[in-house]
Each structure stands twice: as structure tokens, then as C-alpha cells.
């Protein structure tokens, strides 16, 4: 367990000292949060800002503006926001592919220093290796394991995502949905604690997307992983998440957090579901009269 003092010493940075200077009350709150997070939070994002350098001086793009959030262990959290607001940027910082300009990210209580096999990313543009067949893709994260264990794990997760019979197929022979299933199986097989997903179903057709979401929820319930899932699709977020973090336009902050306390499997025309959906629509400042199934 971490002591408050410990935390302060282990996280010296400019942002922090500013916060301390501004208000001692703030510091107290943060310390309390970090302390609690060391027990419960899988991901703790604190005051993260990021500015991309522009082509010329003065052209900088401020993308993230003091974003703070937390994700509990085993929680399914969706991050929604308008296109281009910085969702992928934030996820890439949490995943260790990008470094924040200021602020910090603790995962399992440790600062992030780059990508880590205990947390696997599922990419928007499908990161399945086209030169490996389904079996070898799913087994990619199992390099250190014995042959029997590898084979057992591979078969297990291929079955879990419903691709049994396609072990020898290559990605180019699969549909977009199947390729995304391969990537999910590859992530699960590596047995990570956390899975980061960046609009993994964005390129799929409507029906496939619905089916993939249902399967993802089923898998998540079976595997008890923490999932941080980025989407611009409000319906998707309400169908999947325990909590939805709503990001504002750029430079983005977390504008509001909506708890989706609906039992699973979720009924997509229950009044409670529609209520939640409409609440998020409203928070994001969108008219509901345009169309009931509008997504951003």
C-alpha cells in the first residue's frame, strides 16, 4: 500500500508543483485519490495535457487539457467524444505509445514508461499481422510458453471469438469483422490485465458491429479484464460500458462521467437504455430531433 508521502515523492513534475502552489486542498484530494487508486484503480490518469508541436512555431495543437480520470479493476469504461478531440491521443498515452506533455498516468499503481505486454492494445486500423495465419497471430503473445500450453491457449481463444475452423486462414482471406476477432483473441491470449481498444469496430457494418459488441461483453464477463474502450459512437458506449467518460471538444477535458447502471444483456429499446443514451447526447450538445440513432 502506498503512503501519501510516498506518492508525492515519486511523482515530482512541474504540473504537480503548480497544483500544490495553487491550492493545498487540491493536493489533499489528489493524494487521497492516488491512495485509493493503489488499491482499486487499474488506470489512474491525472492532469494529463498534451500539445502537438506544429509545423511552425505558434502552430502547436493543444489536444488534451488537464484530463483526469480513473478506471477501476475489472471495469468496462468507454471514452466518447467528437471526432478529432483527442481520444486516440489519450489512449495512446495511457498505452505508453505517446508521452504526455504534463501530468501522469499510473497503471496498476505504476507510472507508464512505454507499451507493456500486460496491457494489450487493439488498434483502430487492425494490427493483425497479415503474414501470419490465424493460429500464429493468436499465439503471437505466447512466445515464452511451452508448445502444449501455446496450442491449448490458442485453441481456447480462437473458440472464444468464434473462429474455430479458420486456424489456417490468413487475414486477407477473412472479413473485417473476423480480422478484428483475431486481434481480440490475440490480445486475450496474451493474458493481459487490461485491454485498450481504439474504435475497434469502427470499420465494420452495422449488423457485424452489434454482434461484435455482444460478443465482447460476453468475453469481458468471462475473462474479467479491465477494458478502456474508445469510440465516437454514443450507442456503442451505452451498450458496452459500466461508465462512459465524455470528452469535450479540443483541447479536451473529461466533460462528464455517466454511469450506465443497466443489467446485461442490455435491452436496446428499454426506456432506461434510451434515457442514458439521450443523456449523453444532451451532454455532448446534440439535438435529438435530427434522428434517434444519430452518432457523432
Amino acid at each position, binding site marked *: 500500500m502506498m503512503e501519501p508521502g510516498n506518492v508525492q515523492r515519486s511523482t515530482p513534475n512541474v504540473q504537480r508543483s503548480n497544483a500544490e502552489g495553487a491550492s493545498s486542498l487540491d493536493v489533499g484530494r489528489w493524494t487521497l485519490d492516488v491512495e485509493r487508486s493503489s488499491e482499486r484503480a487499474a488506470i489512474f490518469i491525472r492532469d494529463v495535457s498534451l500539445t502537438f508541436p506544429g509545423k511552425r512555431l505558434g502552430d502547436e495543437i493543444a489536444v488534451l487539457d488537464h484530463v483526469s480520470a480513473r478506471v477501476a479493476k475489472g471495469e468496462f469504461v468507454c471514452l466518447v467524444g467528437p471526432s478529432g478531440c483527442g481520444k486516440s491521443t489519450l489512449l495512446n498515452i495511457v*498505452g505508453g*505509445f505517446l508521452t504526455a506533455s504534463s501530468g501522469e498516468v499510473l497503471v496498476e499503481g505504476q507510472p507508464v514508461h*512505454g*507499451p*507493456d*505486454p500486460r*496491457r*494489450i*492494445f487493439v*488498434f483502430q*486500423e*487492425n*494490427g493483425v*499481422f*497479415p*503474414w*501470419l*495465419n490465424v493460429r500464429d497471430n493468436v499465439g*503471437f*503473445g505466447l*512466445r515464452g510458453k511451452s508448445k502444449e500450453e501455446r496450442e491449448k491457449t490458442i485453441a481456447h481463444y480462437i473458440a472464444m471469438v468464434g473462429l474455430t475452423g479458420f486456424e489456417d486462414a*490468413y*487475414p*486477407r482471406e477473412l472479413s473485417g469483422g473476423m480480422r478484428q476477432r483475431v486481434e481480440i483473441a490475440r490480445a486475450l491470449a*496474451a493474458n493481459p490485465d487490461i485491454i485498450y481498444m481504439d474504435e475497434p469496430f469502427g470499420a465494420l457494418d452495422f449488423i457485424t458491429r452489434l454482434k461484435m459488441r455482444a460478443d465482447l461483453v460476453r468475453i469481458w464477463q468471462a475473462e474479467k479484464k479491465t477494458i478502456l474502450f474508445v469510440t465516437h459512437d454514443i450507442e456503442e458506449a451505452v451498450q458496452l460500458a459500466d461508465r462512459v467518460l465524455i470528452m469535450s471538444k479540443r483541447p479536451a477535458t473529461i466533460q462528464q462521467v455517466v454511469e450506465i447502471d443497466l443489467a446485461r444483456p442490455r435491452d436496446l429499446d428499454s426506456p432506461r437504455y434510451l434515457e442514458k443514451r439521450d443523456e449523453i447526447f444532451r451532454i455532448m450538445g446534440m439535438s435529438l430531433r435530427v434522428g434517434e440513432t444519430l452518432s457523432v
Partner: protein
Amino acid sequence: MPRPALRTAHATTLLSFALPVGVGVMFLLGWHAAVRISGSDLFPTPVEVGRGLLELARQGLLLKYVVASLFRVSWGFALAVAVGVPAGLLLGWYSRGFQAFNPMIQIFRPISPIAWIPVAILWFGVTDAAPIFLIFLASVFPITVSSIAAVQNMQPVYLRAAQNFGLSRGELFRQVILRASLPQIITGIRIALGVAWLVVVAAEMIAVNSGLGYLIIDARNAGKRYDLVVAGMVMIGVIGLVLDLLVRQLEKFDEVRWGYARR
């Protein structure tokens, strides 16, 4: 005209075979007619070229020359692959290295291997090493440049996925960078082989006394045997085609097929 609704796979295959054969036959007929009409007694008809080929085969020269040319290409080309692929992978990966070497590569690249012939003779004399050196020069640049481009054009998502799974440097290179670049490297190799074959013939015309290039020059000089000149040309063309077909087989492997546009 209405197309037949059902064209069987068999008929399609037959057609894809019949069309090029038809064009070939037309070409031979046209060639034959042109020689007859012009009344040339030096330029051979296709039939005379065929007889010339038979004559060379009976003397054992055909096989000997083909083997000699292929031998030189194999060596020069193998050396070029051995140097060009690793160099290309490294320069594609390390941008500092690319910055340092690329201008030099771009200066050497447009110098035709033919221009190197005097230098090759100076350095290696009239030995097999001279054409091998020329073939090496001709093929090492296309191979290097396409390998560089292959690494540079690699989709970043593969790299990021690999990093996520915690690969060591060696694993990253073997299992991802090399694999992701392979389709484009093979394309570079195919182009380079065509160039190598082009160059061996040119090199043999000057530097050595065997091979198909030598056959062409020798047949011309020793008694104006144009039937043998053209026979040599035909062999060059046919072997070039076979080499290309062989390398194309590499593009059919599952490990690289994803890298080529669907046909």
C-alpha cells in the same frame, strides 16, 4: 453482343493460353513473310533460326553457353541480394544511416553498368569476375532501394503491435520488420533479376568468351551467321521469361501474398 452467362473456369484457362499463343504464331508468320518479301539473304526466317538452335544444341554449345550465362548471373545476383537486402533493411530502419548514405546511392544508381565495363576489365581482366561484378552493380541498387522503401513504408500499426507484445530487438527485426517488408523486397528482387539478365548479355559481348552474349558477337564476327545471332537472342528472351516466372512464384507464398494488390 451478349456475353455468355456462364463461362466455365476451363474455358477461361484455355483462352488465357490460346491468346498469347495466337499472338506468338502471328508474330512468327509476319516475321517469315517479311524476310521472304524483302528477299534478304542475311536475316534468317524463324525456321532457319530453329535449325540454328538445333545445330547449337547438337554441338553442345547451347547448353554450355546458357550455363555459362546463368552461372555469372547467379553469382552476381546472389552477391547483390546478400548485400542489398541487409543494407536496405538497415538503412530503411535507421533514418540517420539513410540520411548519410542515400545521396551516395542516388549518385551511383543512374550510372549504367555498361559504363562500368572498362573499369571492370581494368580491375578483373577478362575473367568471370568482370561480368559478375557488372551484374552485381546492376542488381544491387534496385534491391537496396526497394528494401529501404519496404521498411520505410511499413504500416506503423504492426510495429506498435509488436512493441506492445514486448519483442526484443532481434525478434522485432526478424518477426516483424523483415516479414512486413518481404513482399516489396521480393518485387525489388524480381526487377533486379531482369536487369541482371539484361546486363550479363551485354557484359559477355565484351569481356569473356562464353555465354549467350558471346554467342551473338561471335556468330556475327565469324561468318555473319545471323541465324545463330537471332538464335542467341531467342534464348535470352526465353530464359528471361523463365527467370521472371520463377521469381513470380515467390510472390504466391501465403507469407507475402497479402502485400500485392488483389488480382
